[in-house]
């Protein structure tokens, strides 16, 4: 009797905290509804042919970028986990790096160098190779750039899922007579599907909400249309109406996720997991090595080189290029706080969603993702509205800024943690509780230490994203606040590229160690069942 009540208490404890967090996360949606309802031409604005076409453009982009990122990630993760590729760890770190490049910076460099009359074209035509350099603007350019920037969202969880996968499943399948490909499709792929799905969701939502890259690559998406309302028409009401459409698409993407259901459970019940043996590639390894280098080289080294080029050109032309210590400190400080806060609010939601599978927990998890599909300016303005009207003492303080980051990046932390939690055998928790530990102390002393690597990974991802986040920082930051991303924008928007290069480079350099840590730490602390 007492035991049942205790279990209920655990359930309701998690439920209450999750509901509170979801209430916080729903603020932007509530705001959008409040503003959209006040619109006089709600229907006229929405039901236009042009809106429909732009919507289609967004959806095509989401599909192509998600597919592209999945393919690249599979390729990279497979060879980096399961074969004897040379310089494996170095390559793995390299493959994570594109995530630290801000899309507005990448777009800038991409156009300057690979544009139809960019530096690369100049080189080719001066070498008399070709005069007709292909035009990367539009759909393909946007697909390439966003894929290169966002595949790490899938690569990271996929890689750790592969590392942690119990090879006994595959061995069983093979010994029962299934070939390598059938084993892959019927055993390996379904086992990896939580990692693919959570990463894929993030990529899809990120693509939906990106403005920086699509603006510079001249592919008009729905987010572009929303920004037009903010910046051209100064009309936040119309912007809200259009943003609700994005919410609808995000909901559609999130519910389509349920179609790709994998097996019921992803953990192995054997007492000791057998880890994968790496396949010897022999002479092919160097060939594969070079192919693996392509995505990170295009996604991270290329923009980095472009920035260095601008920086040195500026220095040679005698521009005074300096950066204040305080700016760097601010960026680091805020990013660390944002990571900690996001981690804190992601725990209840993740535990609730993985340990209690019911319609409420599913709903709560999905709502927490929606914000990632909205342009971050919408989230920022909605927080202006709520804080100044209801909690004005925290208005324009760091507290408000940190909460804003938390709401925006919550899904990143949730998805990183969830993938690992699903692979953890709940029997371990049951054993701990059978031995007399309570629910919360089990969580604290057994579960959290076991999934620590992915908790840290989630926090680091939030750290990286906060460093480069722009619109939210712009609107919610305290007065006189200065950060690296604000500096980049302040210079780049006025075409001071050399001056914009230094803070961009600082963002990348500060993110580098974090990305390296993501890879190294995980290997040391793999979960043994």
């Amino acid at each position: 009797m007492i035991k049942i009540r205790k279990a209920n208490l655990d359930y309701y404890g998690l439920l209450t905290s999750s509901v509170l967090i979801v209430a916080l996360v729903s603020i932007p949606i509530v705001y959008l509804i409040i503003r959209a309802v006040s619109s006089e031409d709600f229907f006229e604005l929405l039901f236009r042919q042009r809106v429909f076409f732009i919507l289609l453009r967004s959806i095509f982009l989401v599909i192509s970028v998600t597919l592209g990122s999945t393919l690249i990630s599979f390729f990279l993760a497979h060879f980096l986990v399961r074969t004897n590729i040379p310089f494996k760890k170095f390559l793995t770190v390299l493959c994570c790096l594109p995530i630290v490049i801000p899309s507005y910076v990448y777009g800038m460099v991409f156009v300057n160098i690979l544009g139809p009359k960019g530096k690369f074209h100049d080189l080719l035509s001066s070498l008399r190779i070709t005069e007709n350099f292909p035009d990367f603007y539009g759909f393909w350019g946007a697909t390439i750039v966003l894929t290169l920037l966002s595949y790490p969202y899938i690569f990271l969880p996929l890689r750790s899922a592969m590392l942690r996968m119990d090879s006994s499943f595959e061995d069983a399948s093979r010994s029962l007579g299934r070939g390598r490909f059938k084993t892959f499709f019927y055993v390996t792929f379904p086992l990896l599907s939580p990692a693919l799905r959570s990463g894929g969701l993030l990529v899809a939502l990120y693509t939906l909400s990106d403005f920086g890259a699509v603006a510079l690559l001249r592919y008009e998406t729905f987010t572009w249309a929303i920004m037009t309302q903010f910046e051209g028409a100064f009309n936040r009401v119309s912007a809200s109406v259009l943003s609700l459409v994005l919410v609808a698409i995000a909901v559609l993407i999130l519910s389509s996720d349920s179609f790709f259901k994998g097996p019921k459970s992803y953990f192995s019940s054997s007492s000791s997991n057998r880890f994968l043996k790496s396949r010897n590639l022999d002479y092919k390894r160097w060939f594969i090595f070079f192919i693996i280098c392509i995505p990170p080289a295009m996604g991270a080294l290329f923009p980095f080189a472009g920035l260095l080029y601008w920086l040195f050109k500026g220095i040679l032309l005698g521009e005074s290029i300096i950066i204040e210590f305080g700016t760097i400190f601010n960026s680091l400080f805020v990013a660390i706080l944002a990571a900690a806060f996001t981690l804190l609010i992601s725990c209840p939601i993740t535990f609730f969603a993985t340990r209690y599978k019911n319609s409420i927990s599913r709903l709560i998890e999905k709502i927490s993702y929606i914000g990632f599909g909205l342009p971050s300016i919408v989230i920022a303005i909605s927080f202006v509205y709520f804080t100044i009207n209801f909690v004005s003492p925290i208005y324009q303080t760091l507290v408000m800024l940190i909460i804003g980051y938390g709401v925006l990046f919550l899904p990143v932390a949730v998805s990183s943690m969830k993938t690992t939690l699903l692979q953890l055998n709940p029997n371990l928790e049951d054993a701990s509780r059978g031995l007399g530990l309570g629910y919360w102390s089990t969580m604290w002393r057994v579960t959290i230490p076991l999934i620590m690597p992915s908790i840290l990974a989630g926090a680091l991802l939030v750290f990286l994203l906060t460093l480069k986040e722009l619109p939210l920082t712009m609107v919610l930051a305290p007065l006189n606040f200065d950060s690296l991303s604000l500096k980049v924008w302040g210079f780049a928007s006025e075409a001071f590229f050399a001056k914009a290069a230094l803070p961009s480079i600082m963002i990348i350099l500060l993110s580098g160690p974090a990305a390296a840590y993501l890879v190294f730490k995980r290997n040391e602390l793999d979960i043994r069942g």
Partner: protein
Amino acid sequence: MAQSKRRTIKTIFSILVLLLLACDNQASKVEIVEESEVPKNAKPLVIYSGRSESLVAPIIQQFSAVTGILVKVKYGKTGALASTLLEEGNKTPADIYFAQDPGGLGSVESMLAPLTDDIIELVPSWAGSPNGKWVGISGRARVVVYNTDAITDPTNQLPDNIYDFINPKWKGKIGWAPTNGSFQAMITGMRILWGEEKTRTWLEGILANEAKVYAKNTPIVEATGSGEIEVGFVNHYYLHRFIAENTESFKARNYVLPDGGPGSIVLVAGAGILDASNNKDSAESFVKFMLSAPSQGYFANQTYEYPLIEGINKSHLLPNLSTLNTPDVDISDLGDLEATQKLLQETGVLP
């Protein structure tokens, strides 16, 4: 193995620390000194600046140094700040809204306090709001930027009036930024000077010429310099920054349309004082300072904009305002965006 890893991480961190140390922290020291000089009871002046830090921070610092008034600034995009102000309503902490274009000021006009006559009289009447809610601080002219390789003889190769760019010979050669505030102000100017129908024909003509859509002015000037497009409709001052950064070899120049008309209207960046401000004295001295000779000289020579008061020497790169053949349009009318938005949407220029 573990040790070598640790060593790698240590190396990375020490490189970072070195980089941090190498960065200049002189400026932050200066700031602290200035703050201590200011009397403690002075209320800081809060500015929301839609103009970017790289352009206006030096002159705002100078204001602080001269008057001893402590200034707190929030830099952001003009539109994002307008939305922020509208959500804040009368609880806004802002005293001043310094906007990139008349549209931004117009959208929050109901939140602005009327300016005193001695401020309004400083600028010509065309460069401010007719009901005295805001004033222009610096002027920017609409021009046509062209690629010097493709257009070697601008006076003969380029038309006299922006209307003639609907000629099919410009197909695929034009760049524009329909979402940009200044562009929309130009279209509003067209509606006033040409009327709805002619403006519609022009928009449709430019669309038929497959003008390339850019997000804003900067990439248009960049694309013109690289030869990606031959001409672009932009504000005049971006070119000067590209020339400053790329030397005179940058392959684009500005062309002032001889016929004038909407293709060469002059816009302003301006400022207004928030009605909810309880620091109006400091706010007024800020606006006055921005319209004083040193500030106007700063805009003319450092940001290559047009000064709005008499007797300021401007950069030699700028053509005279009088040669611009500016049409007779009231700046504040250019902030009337609603009908322009509608036209742009109907023609399919905007989503």
